[in-house]
């Protein structure tokens, strides 16, 4: 009895020792900053209070009254809703096409994937030009249809749509790579027997390809969702969150609060909200949906 306890302890201890290096890193660069952020979110620490003072939940209640915060959360949900399903679907279609393409297979794959290789800042500059009114690429095309030169980024009604479109273009190729890998894992004999039975291509997709790609879809979905909260670099180049905050996202607002408003406490509280959202998303993957999907 006691010897078995000792041996499990030994084995577990050994495992912990092996994990120690990565635990040290995790603690140093993830857990400690999280703890510090959580702590400062309960303090008022801004330009008016040189010495941080404890104010409890004050930052959080101020946040709920902050119309910009509500707008930013709304924008972020809108942005996620617009980019996630569309880029996943496009990624899947592109993967199936690239998988089936007979001619110039690698050329097709490269051209689908290249937007992802371009750094976000460079892509943002390219798209800034595409969206430029009057002589930008898009305006030149619309002029053929006799439409007015549109200022998509300078209008609160269109700016989010324009940015979401760019993000879909940027992300779809990345997701295609995962789907390509997923497609390689589907046993070919399933397709052969479907072929023998004379099943239509649509049914093949619905009954074989799509369900067997589910694990990939789930994985990609989590990446896409977290990316829609994490990727904000383009805002600096394209809109700076404007006009009137209509393209501002949560992470951009956190940066503004911390480094333009010098409001450390509020920035901490906003970061806690951000961490909460990302944690919920990943928990949903690990503990919820994950179990319903069949892995081989």
């Amino acid at each position, binding site marked *: 009895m006691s010897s078995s306890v000792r041996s499990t302890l030994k084995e577990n201890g050994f495992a912990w020792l092996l994990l120690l290096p990565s635990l040290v890193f995790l603690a140093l660069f993830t857990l400690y900053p999280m703890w510090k952020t959580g702590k400062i979110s309960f303090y008022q620490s801004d330009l008016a209070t*040189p010495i941080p003072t404890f104010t409890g939940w004050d930052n959080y209640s101020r946040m709920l009254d902050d119309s910009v915060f509500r707008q930013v959360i709304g924008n972020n949900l809108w942005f996620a809703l617009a980019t996630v399903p569309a880029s996943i679907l496009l990624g899947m279609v592109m993967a199936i096409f690239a998988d089936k393409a007979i001619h110039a297979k690698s050329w097709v794959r490269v051209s689908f994937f290249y937007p992802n290789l371009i750094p976000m800042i460079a892509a943002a500059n390219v798209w800034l030009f595409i969206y430029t009114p009057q002589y930008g690429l898009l305006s030149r095309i619309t002029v053929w249809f006799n439409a007015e030169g549109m200022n998509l980024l300078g*209008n609160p009604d269109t700016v989010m749509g324009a940015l979401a479109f760019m993000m879909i273009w940027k992300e779809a190729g990345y997701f295609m790579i995962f789907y390509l890998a997923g497609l390689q894992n589907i046993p070919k004999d399933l397709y052969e027997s479907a072929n023998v039975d004379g099943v239509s291509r649509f049914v093949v997709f619905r009954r074989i390809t799509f369900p067997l790609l589910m694990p990939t879809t789930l994985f990609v979905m989590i990446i896409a969702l977290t990316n829609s909260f994490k990727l904000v670099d383009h805002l600096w180049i394209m809109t700076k969150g404007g006009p009137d905050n209509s393209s501002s996202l949560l992470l951009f607002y956190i940066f503004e609060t911390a480094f333009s408003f010098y409001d450390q406490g509020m920035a901490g509280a906003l970061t806690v909200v951000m961490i909460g959202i990302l944690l919920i998303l990943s928990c949903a993957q690990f503990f919820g949906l994950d179990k319903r999907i069949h892995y081989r």
Partner: protein
Amino acid sequence: MKFRAKLMLVLCMCVLFVAGCGTSGSKTGQGDTQQPKLESGANTEQVASEGEQTELSFYYPIAVGGPLTSVIEKMTEEFTKENPDIKVKPIYTGSYADTTTKVQAGVQAKQPPDVAVLLTTELYSMIDSNAVIPLDDFIAKEDPSYIEDFYPAFMSNAQSEGKTYSIPFQRSTIVLYYNKDAFKKAGLDPEKPPANWDELVTAAKQLNQNGQSGIEIPGSGFAYWMFQLLSLQNSPDGGNLMSPDGKKVFFDTPENVEALQYWVDLTKKHKVMPEGILDWATVPSDFLAEKTAMIIHTTGNLTNIKNSAAFDFGVAFLPMNKQYGSPTGGGNFYVFKDIEPKKQEAAWKFIKFMTEPERAAQWSIDTGYVAVRKSAYETDVMKQYTQDFPLAVVARDQLEHAHAELSTHNNGRVSKALSDQVQAALTGTIDPAGALKKAQEEANKALEPFNK
């Protein structure tokens, strides 16, 4: 036995790992600012033999085009040649915003730079975070002609409640650029740019043809700055948007509503400016691509436009209404608090060196910024330059009518409150009066703690 051996091995590795981590961690943690201290500490031991050398870390941003890091580095080398006991370490820190972020991080870690160029509008943020020192003691030791030589419009953003906190270095203001060829084509006199608001509308209407708009004023990023020029021009007594102590703002005055209405009308009523918010960086490109005949933009773009314009262009005073007016912009030198007094003195020497008339003149020529001192325009190099390129003095002449850029306590929030609402008015989501009322309310809230 075998297990023990393994355990020992892993333990050893962990210890090594943690130790390695520790040293590398402490190195990166100390960063650039610590090194000079260590070195100067080492130097202290040599004092007896060869006199000690003070090392200054100097953070600077670059906000205009050109290979300017090498220009700055050359200037600091010259300084060390003249002052062998002081070594300046120039550290390029990206944009103004990046520089502020780095300085702020340094201040919080109690390792600020010794001297830095930051936006003049950071004045109150620097004072409130207890980061910088007033320079009055140093100024008092100088001949009064030194400080009086700086243009007052530039000094006003450096001072608060009777103290001077910074020294102008790279300063700009806003001017009107116009396409002389387009003026000729539209039947306008290319030597007579619009001088007031009404003339601006009339000229813009005539110029607004063949896919070319009459005028463009950028509304992204620095919307508050552009609004400020209209506000200054429409102010009955030359009053600014804020009180000199940076504790109050006056956004929702009837004159300011008129000023914002004028900007909105350029698009909505007169249809001489494109719809929506015009991007800060796109506006000069539009001008160069001849998609707009006039733009209102910073003097910082003068060199760029001069080098790239394929047409004859002019630079003029901003059109007046009740009076001429423009805010200034750009960056000043700040000296930091948590450093040795010896370094602060060295920093002052460095600032004086960097603002010597010859050097201010050369910096202005290299960058397109306005030279910060009157005597800089008396130097031979500047005289030669302005003779070849007379447009360079327009901004200088306009300084007489220039005022401090919007700068208050809690400046980030206050200027954003104004920028957001100006954008909302320009895109038509709210009327100018309502927009400025909202901006005033938000700014009041942000300033409340400083008015107790």
